């Protein structure tokens, strides 16, 4: 019994160490994004909202991670439900606008690493700021195939999405870095932009 207690206590300490480590890394990413913003003269349509949204992305992530592992004695990995987190964050974004439509197809069973999901949320924040600068409506469509998540997005006011990178050339650096961090790939089609990530 004493051995069990000691093992549990060691396991808990290890999880706390890992969580603290991850949290500091997550804060570093937030700080880095703000510093890259000034270093690259990135002008957001609403930079205050972008920062607030990133903080909420982080908050929801830890909330979902905590709830996911509440039933278990000690969590053994850092995977959480893809759908649950993305849905929660999109609903948060929608709470301040009715101009976002989204669809999540066939992803209810998928799990992804918390760090990857956080970067994905930051990508959504970037796309939402593009939307605000266009004063437009946007449609997001998540699906998955062969271990990849595919995110298609489009704006009503853009007739040809093949020109998307040119249109946002000056604002593109952070968006591009986030996509690269997820080892993602851009695919520009006439009617939409597709991002695919191997994050599962």
């Amino acid at each position, binding site marked *: 019994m004493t051995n069990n207690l000691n093992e549990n206590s060691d396991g808990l300490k290890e999880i706390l160490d890992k969580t603290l480590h*991850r949290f*500091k890394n997550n804060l*570093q990413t*937030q700080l*880095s994004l703000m*510093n890259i913003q000034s270093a690259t003269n990135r002008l957001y349509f609403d930079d205050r909202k972008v920062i607030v949204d990133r903080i909420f992305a982080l908050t929801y992530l830890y909330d979902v991670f905590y709830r996911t592992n509440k039933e278990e004695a000690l969590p053994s990995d850092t995977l959480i439900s893809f759908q649950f987190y993305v849905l929660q964050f999109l609903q948060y974004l929608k709470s301040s606008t009715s101009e976002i439509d989204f669809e999540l197809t066939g992803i209810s069973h998928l799990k992804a690493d918390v760090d990857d999901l956080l970067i994905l949320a930051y990508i959504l924040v970037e796309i939402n700021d593009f939307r605000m600068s266009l004063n437009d409506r946007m449609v997001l469509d998540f699906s998955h195939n062969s271990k990849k998540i595919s995110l298609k997005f489009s704006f009503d006011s853009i007739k040809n999405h093949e020109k998307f990178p040119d249109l946002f050339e000056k604002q593109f650096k952070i968006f591009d*870095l986030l996509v690269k961090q997820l080892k993602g790939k851009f695919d520009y089609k006439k009617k939409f932009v597709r991002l695919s990530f191997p994050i599962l």
Partner: protein
Amino acid sequence: MKTKILIVEDDKIVSFEIQSILNQNGFDSTICESYNCCIKNLDTFKPELILLDIDLSKKYEGIQIGSYLNSKSKIPFIYITGYTDTETLKRIQTTKPVAYLSKPFREIDVIGNIELALYNKKASFDDIGNYEVEEASIYSKPIKRALEYIDTNINQEIKTDELIRVSGWSKFHFIREFGKEVGKTPYQYVLDEKMKLASSKLKNTYQTIKEIAFDIGYTSNSSFTNAFVKHSGISPSSFRKKYCR
């Protein structure tokens, strides 16, 4: 000419930020994401300082690089880490970084640590200059040549005959003088140095025991294990269990 700094970090956002900070402060920098890229850039980019993330694609891969830098090069390095637990800190200390930078960091933290490290590097080179003058009086030139030979060839089998050849002395004279100046026999000195390196690799890397044995010049796993047990009183695997988490 700009001071060259190598950034070893697999997080693209963090590495881009560090590069922006370095560019703004007049440094020349390049980014690596892995052990192999870092080792390659030591020769091609020739950095004067390295900023090193502890976890790359593998956990503690950065410590492995630190261990390599500590034993094989004189380039100072600064760890960048979100770890602050004592186990990890103890572990990184064995690889002798010049500093470590805790995440999240600010521009002033990065630049302050770099400036201090470069200043200390310059000061230590000045000291080495003085030390070498003193060292010349401690070791005779033939013994110094033998010690340098051992240091350079620590990853191979080192035969006493080869040391005698390098020293230029006769066998009897070399062994007697080596004992007088170094305080142990050439064989014991080589063994101690190899075991010191093996202990550091067991503690700080994920290399297998077989790989470590080959790295320090043993041709078989069993001869290395026997030598390690004889030297340290414990087997390499027990040593690793005892000192690593």
